């Protein structure tokens, strides 16, 4: 039962939600209002496509890029489910990508059941819808969704009903099971071949097992032989060890004997050397006496040498002193010469001391004269200056009186008493004063010239005074310098310096002559000393040579003694080693004898043991060397033999090992082969069982399709007749008949022979045909799967009002409680329903 639908961007509807009653819903509206679209929406939501619409894009609202429908419905199990489906439309071609989600609505919320986002396929949803609602796509098209065209068409039959009833599926399954059974039956024909192969493989494996057992026995024998040979090898290794020890000891003894011979030879050579030396130099005591005498002479020469050296030293010291004095005197003479030259240069430049003193006296006199002149001129100058000051003051007074006189020309009065004065007198006075002023100016002019001359003369005199003063200072300095130099020459460098120098030179010559003579004496003494030393050295060397030979003699005697001791010990050691070797070989020989070695071999060793016993009685190095060589040869020969045997046995061991591995590989391969074959046989037996089962399933579906086919027609006929009686107001037919080949409907109207019938599609009257069609459709809905709801779209367009209203009002009764969604736009108000939904 559908609880609600929500369509979004679906054909005409942008976003529409409708709730439905659980019984009879009447959906009405004008033409093209989008009523049928709701049914397409339900079909789209349940199955992902809509019959008659090739592309999803055809379902989408114009210019929209997505389309979606949500259904909430109750399942047969009593649960409520929400199914959401949408398609995204991409690009110009509007290719569609679909998504769906199926949830179960519970008290605590929504639970996901299936979702394309979780990887669930369309097939999963389809089977789930079939399980929840009991409808498949075919059933929906045939028995759930009615529209007028489909109602009439059904009367002529519909071959697809074979699919709707499941007949086609049953046939297909019977066919496929048959094919599968045949495939396995073909395979199981090979079971005897596999079983024969298995027997053969098992027999082959048994043969390889026997072979392996024999090879392993062979391997054990070889291993035993190798062990025996290895023990033998160990025994002869001990013989070898004894032989090697004997060889080492013999070698050591030979070395010692050789060393003893060598040292004896050396002793003889050194004794000869000693004899020759004594013959050549005499006895050591006489050489020592001569040496003592020579030493005494040498001491005397050395004393003389010492005295002479001291004498030379003293003379040399005297010479050094004289030389020093000579250098000092020569330095003083140089300094004196330099001062004299300096004095001469000054005298030549500025004159002698007396001349300078004369010049100084004259200069001092000139200086005094100039000083006097200067005093006179300065006095004159002062007087003139006083005159100027006085005359300037007088001139000022006269100019003041003149000014006042000229100002008071109109009314002249006495400036002291204020009494009027005669203007004529004033005029004369002005005249006198002017004359006086002229006189004063003339005096000033004449005295200013005088004053300038005096000033010029004063300046000249002062310069002269300064020049004379400088000259006096210079002369005084030169006189002082001359006096200083003269004093120095007189006091520091007397006349006796030259005489002293000559005396010193003579003394030096004398001392050098003495030194030369003494040096000659010294040379003579040294020669004597050398000669004496040489002689003494010769004696010393002779003594050392004699000592050296004596040391050699002593050393060689010590060495000889040591080596003789070692030789004796070596001999003992050698005899002891032979004894040990004899014992060891004797003991091992017993073991070898027990193991059954060849007679000649043991005899030879026994002989060797006897020889070893003899040699301890009569020592002979030659015999010992012979025993040692014989033993070595014998041991090496035997060891080579054993090694060769061992090598041969090892090769055999490797070979048998390889053979065993190969045999084991064969066994393993056969084991695998047997296991595989057994598995194959086991699988084939399983397949045999499955093939049998498939055959039975083939028969099940073969029978099932017969049952469905046989029952479908008769049940449908019964249901259609019953349904038609309920829908129609009249009881028209005695019988209806379904052709089981094409599902076409035939009817037998009342009053007609029961064996006669008319094809329903050709029955007269559209209303009659429509009624039959609806009966057929409703019956299908009831028979096939007990439809959970019916979608009926304008089924009664060509019916008269009475029949239409009657039929549509009766729908709930006919539907027997199944939910109905009816679309109509005729006589809406006259139809009784549970819910009216206007679009």
């Amino acid at each position, binding site marked *: 039962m559908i609880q609600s639908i929500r369509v979004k961007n679906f054909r005409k509807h942008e976003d529409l939600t409708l709730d439905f009653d659980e019984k009879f819903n009447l959906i009405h509206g004008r033409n093209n209002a989008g009523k049928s679209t709701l049914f397409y929406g339900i079909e789209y939501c349940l*199955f992902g496509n809509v019959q008659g619409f090739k592309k999803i894009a055809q379902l989408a609202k114009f210019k929209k890029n997505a389309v979606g429908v949500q259904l909430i419905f109750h399942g047969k199990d009593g649960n409520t489910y929400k199914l959401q489906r949408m398609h995204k439309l991409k690009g110009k071609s509007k290719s569609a990508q679909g998504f769906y989600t199926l949830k179960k609505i519970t008290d605590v919320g929504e639970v996901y059941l299936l979702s394309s986002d979780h990887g669930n396929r369309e*097939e999963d949803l*389809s*089977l789930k819808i*079939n*399980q929840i609602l009991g409808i*498949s*796509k*075919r059933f929906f098209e045939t028995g759930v969704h009615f529209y007028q065209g489909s109602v009439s068409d059904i009367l002529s039959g519909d*071959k*697809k009903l*074979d*699919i709707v*009833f*499941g007949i*086609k*599926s*049953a046939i*297909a*399954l019977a066919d*496929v*099971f048959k*094919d*599968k059974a045949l495939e396995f039956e073909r395979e199981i024909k090979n079971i005897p071949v596999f079983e024969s192969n298995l027997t053969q493989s098992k027999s082959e494996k048994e043969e390889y097992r026997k072979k392996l057992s024999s090879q392993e026995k062979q391997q054990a024998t070889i291993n035993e032989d190798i062990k025996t040979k290895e023990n033998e090898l160990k025994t002869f290794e001990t013989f070898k060890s004894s032989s090697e020890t004997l060889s080492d000891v013999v070698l050591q003894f030979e070395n010692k004997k050789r060393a003893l011979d060598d040292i004896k030879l050396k002793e003889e050579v050194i004794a000869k050397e000693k004899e020759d030396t004594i013959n050549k130099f005499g006895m050591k005591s006489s050489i020592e006496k001569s040496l003592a005498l020579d030493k005494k002479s040498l001491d005397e020469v050395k004393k003389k040498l010492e005295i002479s050296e001291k004498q030379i030293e003293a003379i040399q010291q005297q010479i050094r002193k004289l030389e020093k004095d000579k250098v000092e005197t020569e330095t003083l003479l140089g300094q004196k010469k330099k001062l004299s030259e300096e004095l001469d240069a000054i005298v030549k430049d500025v004159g002698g001391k007396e001349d300078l003193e004369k010049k100084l006296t004259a200069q001092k006199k000139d200086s005094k004269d100039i000083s006097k002149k200067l005093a006179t001129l300065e006095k004159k100058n002062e007087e003139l200056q006083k005159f100027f000051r006085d005359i300037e003051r007088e001139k000022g007074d006269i100019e003041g009186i003149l000014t006042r006189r000229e100002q008071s020309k109109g009314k002249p009065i006495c400036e002291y008493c204020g009494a009027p004065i005669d203007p004529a007198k004033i005029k004369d006075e002005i005249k006198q004063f002017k004359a006086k002023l002229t006189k004063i100016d003339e005096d000033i002019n004449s005295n200013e010239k005088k004053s300038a001359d005096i000033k010029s003369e004063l300046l000249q005199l002062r310069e002269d005074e300064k020049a004379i003063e400088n000259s006096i200072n210079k002369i005084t300095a030169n006189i002082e310098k001359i006096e200083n130099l003269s004093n120095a020459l007189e006091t520091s460098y007397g006349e006796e310096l030259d005489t002293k120098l000559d005396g010193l030179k003579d003394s030096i010559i004398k001392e050098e002559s003495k030194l030369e003579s003494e040096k000659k004496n010294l040379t003579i003494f040294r020669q004597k000393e050398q000669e004496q030393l040489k002689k003494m050295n010769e004696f010393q060397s002779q003594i050392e040579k004699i000592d050296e030979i004596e040391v050699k003699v002593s050393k060689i005697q010590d060495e000889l003694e040591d080596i003789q001791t070692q030789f004796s010990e070596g001999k003992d050691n050698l005899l002891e080693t032979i004894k040990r070797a004899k014992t060891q070989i004797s003991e091992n020989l017993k073991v070898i004898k027990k193991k059954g070695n060849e007679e000649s071999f043991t005899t030879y060793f026994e002989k060797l043991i006897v020889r070893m016993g003899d040699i301890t009685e009569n020592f002979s190095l030659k015999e010992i060397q012979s025993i040692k060589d014989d033993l070595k040869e014998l041991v090496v020969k035997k060891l080579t033999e054993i090694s060769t045997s061992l090598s041969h046995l090892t090769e055999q061991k490797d070979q048998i090992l390889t053979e065993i591995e190969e045999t084991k590989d064969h066994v393993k391969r056969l084991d*695998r082969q047997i*296991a595989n074959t057994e*598995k194959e046989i086991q*699988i084939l037996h*399983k*397949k045999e069982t*499955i093939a049998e*089962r*498939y055959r039975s*399933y083939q028969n*099940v*579906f073969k*029978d*099932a399709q017969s*049952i*469905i086919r046989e*029952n*479908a027609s008769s*049940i449908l006929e*019964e*249901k259609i007749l019953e349904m038609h009686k309920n829908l129609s107001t009249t009881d028209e037919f005695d019988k209806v008949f379904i052709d089981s080949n094409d599902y076409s409907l035939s009817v037998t109207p009342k009053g007609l022979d029961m064996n006669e019938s008319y094809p329903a599609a050709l029955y007269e009257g559209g209303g009659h045909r429509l009624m039959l069609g609806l009966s057929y459709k409703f019956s299908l809905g009831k*028979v*096939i*799967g*007990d439809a959970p709801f019916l979608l009926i779209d304008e089924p009664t367009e060509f019916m008269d009002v009475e029949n239409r209203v009657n039929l549509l009002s009766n729908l709930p009764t006919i539907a027997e409680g199944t939910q109905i969604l009816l679309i109509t736009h005729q006589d809406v108000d006259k139809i009784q329903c549970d819910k009216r939904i206007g679009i």
Partner: protein
Amino acid sequence: MSFKFNISEILTGFELSERERSNLARLFDYTNFLYDDETNLTKTFNLVKGAREKLMERISEMFESDLFEDESIEAEEEFMEEKGQ
């Protein structure tokens, strides 16, 4: 009228185990699903090759799984043995 076109009911009339009945019913539903899709059908309403193969695969999954149940383990053992050699 007691008869409905319900395969489970029809299968009760055959000598089958419960498991077999359930499997065959599911297989029948699956075949119906294949028949529901027009693209799976020939003009004479038979299954096309691809759909038939799908059906055969489904049968193999349902009834033949025990045929090869030990095969993977054995193959692994064989491989390890060869590797060891």
